[in-house]
């Protein structure tokens, strides 16, 4: 155990544990649900996870800085609706323009959150609870409760969820899933190697220390919200692609799923630790449960939410109890290693001395 802890950081254990749990669940569902291990199941879950995963990546950045963004569900709905309406009016718009527009609208809405939190010093939960309501209200008012329907959307958009880029056995890899994977990898690399990514951790661990150290804390928090908004805009476009029919309630409650995914994925809600991979695994776990529990024979679909609540709780509790202990063990193991090295250095030094 100590030898293992000297090599692997405790946080990695959590990601490993998530992978094991996900595999176990797949095996369990596979044995209980007829036709579970099919291409159809994979397509269904991968398209749904794709949207949540992109949102979880953005949310992770914000949560790392010890903040939260509860408005993403409303941003997704707003972007999906407006871009959808735009497309129904003029079907000939270049897809690139459509995607850029989605990200742009999302980023603008995210910037409002960022301004309020970073420079207005409004606590994140208040600011984004407020914009959650305001963005949604704006959507309902501006739309006049009309609905975007698939029959008026351009063909390329409707075909997008059905196109298979390539197949692995029965499993078709769809464009939405590829977009999500690219986003996850890009932002994980950013988090690990760019100064901005490293600063997010520093800000979340100790905002005061980060400020005293001269980090542009306010600007970084703002940028985190801006990027999160942009990703929510992208997710809004993906939402439109996935469903086609968009009502004014589109995306409602998505923020809860996303925060749940992030928390289950081991991103500390008090900031300072977490990874995109973890958030992604959290998204997969939650979505797998949500999509599959209802297919279990003899189980009411209403068990789902009760179960999800419990899962979040257990994830946070295990983070606190088990990971806390693992961290202590790892620290001890590292100290032991250090001492051994010092010891051998000392004896080695004596032996080779003049």
């Amino acid at each position, binding site marked *: 155990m100590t030898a293992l802890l000297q090599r692997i950081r405790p946080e990695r254990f959590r990601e490993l544990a998530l992978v094991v749990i996900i595999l176990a669940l797949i095996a369990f569902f596979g044995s209980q649900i007829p036709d579970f291990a099919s291409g159809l199941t994979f397509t269904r879950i991968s398209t749904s996870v794709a949207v949540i995963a992109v949102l979880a990546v953005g949310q992770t950045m914000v949560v790392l800085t010890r903040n939260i963004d509860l408005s993403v569900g409303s941003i997704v709905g707003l972007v999906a609706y407006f871009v959808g309406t735009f497309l129904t009016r003029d079907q000939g718009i270049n897809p690139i323009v459509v995607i850029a527009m989605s990200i742009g609208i999302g980023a603008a809405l995210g910037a409002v959150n960022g301004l309020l939190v970073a420079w207005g010093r409004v606590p994140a939960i208040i600011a984004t609870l407020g914009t959650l309501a305001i963005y949604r*209200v704006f959507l309902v008012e501006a739309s006049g409760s009309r609905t975007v329907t698939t029959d008026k959307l351009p063909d390329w958009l409707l075909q997008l969820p059905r196109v298979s880029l390539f197949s692995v056995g029965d499993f078709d890899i769809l464009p939405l899933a590829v977009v999500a994977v690219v986003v996850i990898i890009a932002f994980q690399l950013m988090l690990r190697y760019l100064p901005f990514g490293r600063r997010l951790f520093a800000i979340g661990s100790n905002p005061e220390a980060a400020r005293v150290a*001269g980090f542009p804390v306010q600007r970084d928090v703002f940028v985190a919200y801006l990027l999160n908004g942009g990703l929510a805009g992208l997710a809004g476009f993906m939402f439109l692609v996935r469903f086609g029919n968009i009502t004014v309630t589109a995306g409602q409650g998505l923020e809860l799923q996303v925060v749940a995914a992030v928390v289950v994925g081991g991103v500390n809600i008090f900031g300072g630790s977490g990874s995109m991979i973890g958030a992604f695994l959290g998204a997969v776990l939650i979505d797998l449960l949500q999509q599959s529990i209802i297919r279990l024979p003899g189980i009411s679909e*209403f068990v789902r939410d009760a179960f999800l609540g419990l899962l*979040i*709780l257990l994830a946070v509790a295990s983070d606190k109890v088990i990971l806390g202990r693992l961290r202590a063990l790892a620290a001890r193991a590292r100290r032991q290693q250090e001492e051994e090295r010092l010891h051998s250095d000392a004896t080695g030094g004596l032996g080779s001395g003049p």
Partner: protein
Amino acid sequence: MARDLVRRLGSWEGLLLVLLLAIVAVNAVSVPGYLGVQNQINLLQLNVEKVIVVLAMTMVIIAGEIDLSIASVMGLAAVLVAWLTERGVSMELAIVIALLAGVLAGAFNGFWVAVVGLPSLAVTLAGLIGFRGVARLFIGDRSLGGFPDWFTGLGQHPLLGPIPFAILAFSVLLVVAAIVLQASGFGRLLYVVGSSPDVARYSGVRVRRVKWSIFIISSTVSAFAGILLAARLGAVRGSTAEGFELDIITMVLLGGVSIFGGSGRILGVFLSILLILNLRNGLGLLNVSGNAQTGVLGALLILSVLVPNVARGVRGRLQARGGRSLPPPGRLTEGAEPSPPVGG
């Protein structure tokens, strides 16, 4: 004394009072009979459940925690009452059981926060999803009703003069909350725990017990309010009380209670309740839809924090320029240290 009065008026509560009077004045001028007792009672009647929970939420936030699960607990209690009576359980027993469910939900939340030490934001977010899920387990997608007359009358039938039971209950709870917060030992503990749990612990306060009790209080009061909601609506669905947390938290924070805990008074919260009810009513009279009213509330929630922050910033800057006082230490270090390039 006079100075004290000026300070009071310049305070948050003074501002709320001025705003409230302005809104009431505008409404009273544009609508005849607005100030009538019956109209004010109607106003309160339509929101009495939320407003009752606001009182409990005030305590939770003063103690430095948050409870996002309140609306789901309200829904759960409402569903339980309906489900049990459908099964032939007597109304009285159903109410007791629903209240007990509230106590249990609070003990559950409190356990994870106080004993295990998890952040209340995460715990009650899980509660928000989970308790709603439990409620749906009972009711599915049906709608249940058929309550006895005395029960549905709790929210509407005048009991004392023109006042129905629900508003009477709110009034009693308002007084209780004021006494607990402003004049009891437990209330003082809430403020101490809210401003600094560590200081509280080192001073011998049983922080765990205090935290556990506020979550039990919060959920029990929410269950009570949920039962009243079931009575007033006459029918319960799985989505009953969904989304109430925004209104409730807005009322508390607009009342001058700090989200970081340790400060706030029931007077401010009471004024903010009246302010929001009259504002919603006034907007309704101006034909602003319920949906847009929610937007106004959201904006109000943000502004209630943003405006004092900006004002403080401007005042600080003015003072620094006038040289009347030194800038606060935070700004001093910020200015003194040039930002070094940050390495990865």
